[in-house]
């Protein structure tokens, strides 16, 4: 056991006590924050704040009610025109960006006409027009009813089976799993990548020959796995601390964050799936590293196999639209995609207990099988130089027959 922990400690320190580790760990969230900031800045700079016009043939719209809109000064100005020709002239002169014609039949018929120059107004501008029309539609009702109909209900969904709640007002509970998934994924895959480099690299430079005179293959691989797992957990701890600090700083300015609570259920679920997933990836990377003769070869093979793990990210739109679909369910049960898919689904609803249970059992069984097979492949391939293990050789190694 002493050798095991020596190797684990050495691998952990080699990985973590490097400037590059901290830089790369912080670069990802900072890079994402920069990208989000860039898109927000670009969207706000690119906004067209020219007035929007309308021609009201239905007689229901009162231009004075524009002042009744919330944050009226920050909204697009809405101007009334007596007829289409006058509005068109203003549009051609560039005084307005677009105008809407409300026919006599409005609101019985919602068919309006929208006039613009090159492209229709963006969603934010049309939201201002929609808000203006709503205020007019409700102007004859009591103030309290108006406010309620404009604000809409505050819906909370309760899952009676597991007690989870989903609220429109609790943005963190919905957004957190998506953000956390990405960081878990990055930490796991970068550690797995290190594992491959370490195993294949030590084979390539023949360090392994020296090491195997002192330690057993199990101690070597086990120690490295634990050391890199600890490095991965260190990265995650940095992300969690950064997220908590970020939430504390932002909460006073963002109302939606003020009610945020630590999602213990989510963290528990992630821990349950993270460790066997990591073991599965580590086993695969060890097997690849032991089977190839050069790090580069291993990276090429690993690059293809990594697709098996990252494929849920390609399905994001499907997960958003229909988290209970058969395809998403299949991805929840398949061992390489179970971790990411379950994490992504968590924020969008309840993952049925039977799916989570079955998924976890399959994942653990596959991880154990991967580790067992990796140990056999490692024994067969680690001292084999000049020629990578063929597929037949790998199968023979796993079966325990000579290859």
């Amino acid at each position: 056991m002493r050798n095991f922990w020596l190797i684990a400690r050495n691998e952990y320190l080699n990985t973590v006590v490097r400037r590059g580790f901290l830089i790369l760990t912080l670069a990802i969230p900072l890079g994402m924050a920069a990208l989000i900031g860039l898109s927000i800045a670009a969207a706000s700079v690119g906004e067209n704040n020219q007035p929007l016009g309308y021609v009201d043939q239905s007689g229901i719209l009162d231009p004075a009610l524009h002042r009744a809109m919330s944050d009226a000064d920050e909204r697009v100005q809405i101007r009334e025109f007596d007829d289409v020709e006058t509005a068109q002239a203003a549009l051609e002169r560039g005084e307005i960006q677009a105008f809407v014609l409300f026919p006599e039949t409005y609101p019985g018929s919602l068919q309006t006409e929208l006039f613009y120059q090159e492209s229709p107004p963006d969603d934010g501008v049309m939201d201002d027009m929609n808000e203006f029309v709503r205020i007019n539609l409700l102007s004859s009702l009591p103030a309290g009813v108006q406010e309620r109909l404009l604000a809409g209900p505050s819906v909370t969904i309760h899952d009676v089976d597991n007690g989870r709640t989903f609220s429109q007002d609790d943005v963190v509970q919905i957004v957190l799993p998506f953000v956390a998934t990405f960081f878990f994924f990055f930490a796991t895959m970068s550690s797995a990548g290190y594992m491959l480099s370490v195993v294949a690299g030590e084979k390539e430079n023949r360090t392994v020959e020296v090491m195997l005179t002192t330690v057993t293959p199990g101690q070597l691989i086990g120690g490295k796995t634990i050391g890199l797992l600890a490095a991965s957990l260190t990265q995650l701890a940095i992300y969690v601390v950064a997220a908590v600090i970020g939430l504390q700083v932002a909460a006073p300015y963002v109302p939606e964050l003020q009610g945020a609570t630590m999602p213990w259920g989510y963290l528990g679920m992630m821990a349950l799936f993270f460790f066997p997933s990591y073991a599965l990836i580590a086993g695969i990377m060890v097997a690849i590293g032991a089977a190839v003769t050069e790090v580069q070869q291993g990276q090429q093979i690993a690059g293809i196999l990594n697709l098996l793990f990252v494929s849920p990210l390609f399905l994001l739109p499907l997960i958003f639209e229909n988290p209970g679909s058969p395809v998403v369910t299949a991805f929840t049960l398949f061992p390489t995609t179970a971790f990411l898919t379950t994490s992504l689904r968590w924020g969008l609803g309840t993952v049925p207990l039977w799916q989570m249970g079955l998924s976890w059992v399959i994942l653990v069984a596959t991880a154990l099988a991967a580790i067992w097979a990796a140990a056999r492949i490692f024994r067969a391939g680690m001292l084999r130089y000049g020629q990578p293990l063929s597929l037949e050789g790998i199968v023979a190694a796993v079966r325990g027959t000579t290859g």
Partner: protein
Amino acid sequence: MRNIWLVIKHDIGVTLRQRSFWVLTLIMPLIMIGINAYYIIGDGDSADAGQSAPGADLGALPAIGLVDEGNLIEALPEGVPPDLFVPFGDAEAARAALKAGEIDEYVVISPDYVATGEIEVYDQEVQISLDAEGPLAAFGGEAGLLNYVIGYNLTGDPQVVAALQNPVPLWAAETHAMAPAAGDGRNEELASLMASVVPLVYYFLLLMGSSYLMRSVVAEKENRTAEVLLVSVETGQLLAGKIVAMSAVTLIQVVVWLAGGTFVLRRGADLLAMGTLDLPPGFVVWAVLFLIFGYLLFASIMVAGGALANNAREGGQLTWLLIIPLMPTLMFGEVFVQEPNGTLSVALSLFPFSAPSAMVTRLAVGSVPLWQIVLSLAGVAVCAYIFLRLAAGFFRAGNLLSQEAFNWRRLLTDWQGSR
């Protein structure tokens, strides 16, 4: 020249013999296009479905338990089945019915709903879908339906309530473009598909091609082949040979993807009735030019990094730095369709590191002023020249034979020495 040709032949052969190269070249684009086409066609279908007025297609909904503590709901609007809502006196009775399987879910409207707006929905195996319009509809179609029913009872006017959901629905509006942009008759689905596919294609071409180059340099450093090579070949010849070799490999990928992509787009568009996408004149020429200069820019950075990196792990970290400028085009592809001349689209297509991907995407989905294309290409070309000069400075025997770990001080020293 003979040495350069030998290096070219060797590197092309090594790369083309890699199975992963052919997997990425042949299979990955099919997967990406397939996934994106599925979403875009699926989005079109769901958008069509979403154009129905509130309350439509309610016969298919199972009965919903209703605990109306404020006695708000006295009547149901036309179109809502009278037996859709099953009234319960209190929440406990409704919960019992839910447990017994008599209802699938129930809602509780708070007695002070007008003041607080609180609605509690109780369900089993909750699923939130972000497909529907607006968060309310996303929180179960029942929540949106209930909002409609409550609105009907508070206003007493079904027309007002229907209009409140979406007062100016663009899907129902007759639009008039007074000065439509060129290519405005484009097929939106195809444009969206191109805005998803082109950034992916350029991501793979630029990153994969330059990654092969970097890995080749680092591998020869790690296994000390460089020591033998530099006995017979000058560093300049080695650098030129590698860049030309990887350019040829990238060109093979381009040909395969262009031929396959054109076939798939035309046949797929016919099969899926998506119409045809007319690319602007000169699109292929611009696309190739941006690819060439973009590749030279990325390749020169990767070569320089490979020369300085001590092993594949260190060199691989460089890849992340180059992924970041390509990410915005991948993430915001739809912005290029919605606002091809917007600030974000223009900024990304002028910034040299994102320009190859972004500008070609803009060209694929709409028209771009000629001066922007020329300025963007010039920016990429100038940056490619600068980084090629830097790469030539770093790509020397001292670095290729060094086992010293990468550090920024050495990078700075080498950079100053190469100027």
